[in-house]
């Protein structure tokens, strides 16, 4: 222990060198001016993004919470988009007219709301091979088209 103390004493003396490491002459005369200049030009109070960035760099928990919230919001929006698709087709939508105008048994069996969810369907894939919906141009669909007149009575 004694030799340890002696060695630490030698180390302490060696550390004295560091106290004599000084910046270039006049540095401390200029530093306050540089700080004042930056405060004036960059603004004294931080902006919104400064605060956000500062929170990210100093509080990792803030970054994790933000990532979790963003992931939650994304998941919620995806789920609500998927669930909202059948509800969006109300009585006035073309989809409703298509379904009501096609009373054939074949069509009634193919309820859109019951079809299995496929990525290709809700991503708007135009590949007819990927879609499980019946074609509007099939024989059954053509026979149920009603003519509409827009002329005023």
């Amino acid at each position, binding site marked *: 222990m004694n030799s340890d103390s002696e060695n630490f004493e030698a180390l302490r003396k060696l550390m*004295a060198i560091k106290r004599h490491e000084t910046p270039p002459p006049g540095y401390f005369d200029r530093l306050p001016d540089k700080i004042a200049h930056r*405060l004036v030009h960059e603004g004294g109070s*931080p902006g919104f993004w400064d605060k956000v960035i500062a929170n990210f760099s100093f509080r990792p928990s803030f970054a994790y919470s933000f990532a979790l919230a963003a992931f939650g919001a994304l998941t919620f929006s995806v789920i609500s988009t998927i669930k909202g698709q059948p509800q969006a087709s109300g009585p006035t939508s073309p989809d409703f007219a298509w379904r009501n105008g096609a009373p054939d048994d074949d069509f009634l069996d193919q309820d859109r709301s019951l079809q299995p969810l496929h990525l290709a369907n809700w991503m708007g894939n135009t590949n007819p091979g990927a879609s499980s919906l019946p074609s509007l141009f099939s024989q059954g669909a053509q026979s149920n088209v009603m003519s509409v007149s827009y002329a005023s009575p």
Partner: protein
Amino acid sequence: MLLTKPEMEKTIERPLVAVFDEAVEAEEIDDLTLVRRAQSEDMRAYDLLVRRYQERIYATVYHMTSNHDDANDLAQETFIKAFRALKTFKGDSSFYTWIYRIAVNKTINFLKQRKNRVQISLNDVDFNAEHDPDLVALTSERTPRRDLNLSELQEKLNEAMLKLSEHHRMVVTLHDVQGLSHEEIGKIMDCNVGTVRSRLFYARQQLQAYLSDYLK
């Protein structure tokens, strides 16, 4: 002679400013008074706080980074961040502890981001070093360090410091270089005195091993 209102205000203000200057020069105005003035956007008061602590803050950051440019940037950022956060300073701790804490956190974050990209850019050892009793004692002894000049010894010491972890290096810097007490370091680093002591002991042991050739 009748004075206009602005002239009267100037006449009244001037002596107050002069009194303030004299008090500042004599370091009679305490930190808290300057902080309160700076909180109400008095840039002059903040400038005085900067001048009061710049050397200690710069030195702390410099001894942690061993790079003058990094120390310069970090010291500036510390004072800028402190000014922006000044409204939140309640005076529970001293301004000195508070600004040190900002500097320490900024420096440790910087070093963690920098990882192994270490670039040493040391300041010169000043002329007074040759008369420092500790250094005179060191170089007068017959050891390997006697054959080294001061700048080589400085380089070896800084290399050894950079091998320490950020927290260990910080404790050595604050205690052995800057002369702060264990209690002050505990407040600055937000840990108890026991942790400070154990970190200091471990850091010294490591330094001793790295610098064994120069401590015989």
